[in-house]
């Protein structure tokens, strides 16, 4: 009798164990399936991100052109350089790069980074000057514009000091 009881118990334990293991296996399988899907998604992200990083690093060259062009004295030399710059813009805009507009617009921290502000008669929050060009790559902001924004001053100045 004892023997049967013991075996019964043992069987129960084993059955439960088997069920648990099977359950675990199912989870693991589902996990794996999900992981595979996740990896596929991740691969897409990485591919687009790889381009993004390269383009972002190249933006420095854009900046250099923007600064160099006005500094070239002879119109003739400038025209040539301007064409080189245009070609560069063309190539990268085919990849979805576009500059962010800012001067005269309202400051938007999703697009712009404020470096300083100036008290003036213009409405507070308007962008007065572009200190560094910002860019979007396929709608994603890869570098915000660096800007100077206005702070409206009335006769009665507030306690706001910046």
């Amino acid at each position, binding site marked *: 009798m004892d023997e049967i009881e013991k075996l019964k118990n043992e069987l129960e334990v084993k059955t439960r164990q088997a069920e648990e293991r099977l359950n*675990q296996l199912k*989870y*693991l399988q589902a*996990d794996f399936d999900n*992981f595979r899907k*996740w*990896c596929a*998604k991740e691969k897409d992200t990485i591919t687009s*991100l790889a381009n*993004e990083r390269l383009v972002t690093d190249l933006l420095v060259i854009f900046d*250099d052109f923007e*600064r*160099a062009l006005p*500094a070239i004295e002879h119109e003739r030399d400038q025209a040539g350089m301007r064409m080189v710059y245009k070609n560069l813009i063309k190539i990268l805009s085919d990849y979805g790069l576009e500059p962010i507009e800012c001067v005269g617009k309202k*400051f938007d*921290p*999703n697009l*712009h*980074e*404020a*470096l*300083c*502000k100036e008290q003036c008669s213009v409405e*507070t*929050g308007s962008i007065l000057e572009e*200190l*560094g060009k910002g860019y979007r790559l396929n709608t*994603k*902001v*890869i570098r*915000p514009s*660096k800007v*100077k*924004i206005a*702070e409206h001053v009335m006769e009665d100045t507030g306690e*706001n000091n*910046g």
Partner: protein
Amino acid sequence: MGKEKIIGIDLGTSNSEAAVMVGGKPTIIPSAEGATVAGKMFPSYVAFTADGQLLVGEPARRQAITNPDGTVTAAKRKMGTDHVYKIYGKEYTPQQISSFILQKIKRDAEAFLGETVKKAVITVPAYFNDNQRTATKDAGKIAGLDVVRLVNEPTAASMAYGLDRGGEYKILVFDLGGGTLDVTIMEFGGGTFTVLATSGDTQLGGTDMDNAIYEWIAGEFRKTEGIDLRTDKMAVNRVKEAAEKAKIELSTVMETEINLPYVSATQAGPKHLSMKMSRAKLEQLIEPIIKRCIQPFEQALKDANLTKNDIQKVILVGGPTRMPVVQKFIEDHVGKKMERGIDPMECVAMGAAIQGAILGGEITDMVLLDVTPLTLGLETLGGVRTALIDRNTTIPTKKSQTFSTAADMQTSVTIHVLQGERPMAADNVSLGQFNLVGLPPAPRGVPQIDVTFDIDASGILNVSAKDLGTGKEQKMTITASTKLADADVKKMVSDAKQYEEQDKARKEEVEARNVADSLVYTAEKTKADLADKLNPDMVDRLNGAITGVKAALEGKDTAKIRSETEKLQKVLGDAGSAAYQQAAQRQAQQAGPQTASAGGDSAGNAAGPGGENVVDADFKVHDEK
């Protein structure tokens, strides 16, 4: 009930990071805006704009200068106090401010995982008192997160390095962040971490280093050009960015160049900033900052009643500890090598994610899976090693491949099981071999022998070979395939790297030989098959080319073997097309006076589409080589 993801959050003073277990590995959760140059994910900034908009993270940082009254940063320092932030007429507690950051992390984590996130493990400094801890938990609650546990930051970092898996030791955690230094000494034993002492400096960090570099660059420029860049907002911004970039680069290279064209202008024209910065210079600049780390470090040891000889493990946390000079300073000072292998900026969040996975039951009931340390394969024609299971494959796993015979009428094959990374069989370790006998005599390449490598969870390798034609099967079991000393594995992998070039050349040589050999076989077969269709001239050409390849095969000149093989290939092609032209002509002649349309079917079959079929068959012959 599905297994819920519990994310780990490192809620920092100036930056926050989050991680989650994906496929059994802690993975950093990217912010929607993407990481900054230095890899920072979530700047700990919260802002309210004048028009009542809430901004969190990077966008909040971007407008901080213009909206100082509406922007809060470093709320962590106020956690657990009665401090109240008054913003545009409203009041916020530090935990409310922190909750906005947690909410943002929750949102981005959900976008990353594609599922709702309800639970989190959040890390806190070891010195946080009950009030500060409760406040942190409350922040989570406000953000809609069930904070299943708070973990000390140094504990999380230790877990990321796997120091929670047994053993007993004293650990020094040196956490140098953007603006704070925390030194913690802990003891691990019996499955728990106990904090023995903490010390630190709340005004010391990477920002000080960036400033020192910035000041140096600007100072040098003033010395050489006489222009003070510090008055020009745009130039200041560019120099600061360049300073941070130089600092990061100098962790991997000895010297970097800082180039800022058109950084300024005078009446004389544009001015460019161009200077070299060496690692030595950087180290000299930040030396005073590093020296300030000594005192908190000594204090922590003193408070723990220990000397540096008592420390067994050293863990570095925070971006600035990526710098070799910081690492060297600590290693020299403690006299121990630091733990390596995990990004110091990510290790706290990763450890929190591991803790989350343990609490969520994701880790405990997961069987620890092993990997094959070396590639497993077998020897094929010409002594080449053909890999079946690549190194680092997670086991259990099973791979099959079909092989064939190398000679006509071959009635047995030898399965020689090899382990190692070298492409030639002889350079690898032989695990054993067996023969599959009794194959029915057939031309080479015809029999199909399925070879299966099956490694079970305990690393036992079962190799079986089955002839698909007769169903005959032979097996062997190898028990030692995964049990190798680490040093042996390392040596075999490094040998493979060292001899890579040589091995490649040898393998190519053998492959060229195999190709040549099989082409000769094909050519001789073709010659016999098309005997009645080839003119004597073509037969002569074929014989000539075959002899050429055979002669080359006797020598050792791989280039010659290749060129002779190519010649034979060309002749063989010519022979094939000649044969079919002849056949087509014959067919056309036979069709004779019949109208094109009437005879189209039969003649067309042979000459037109039929011709294509033949080309196909020709390719097939090539395939078999």
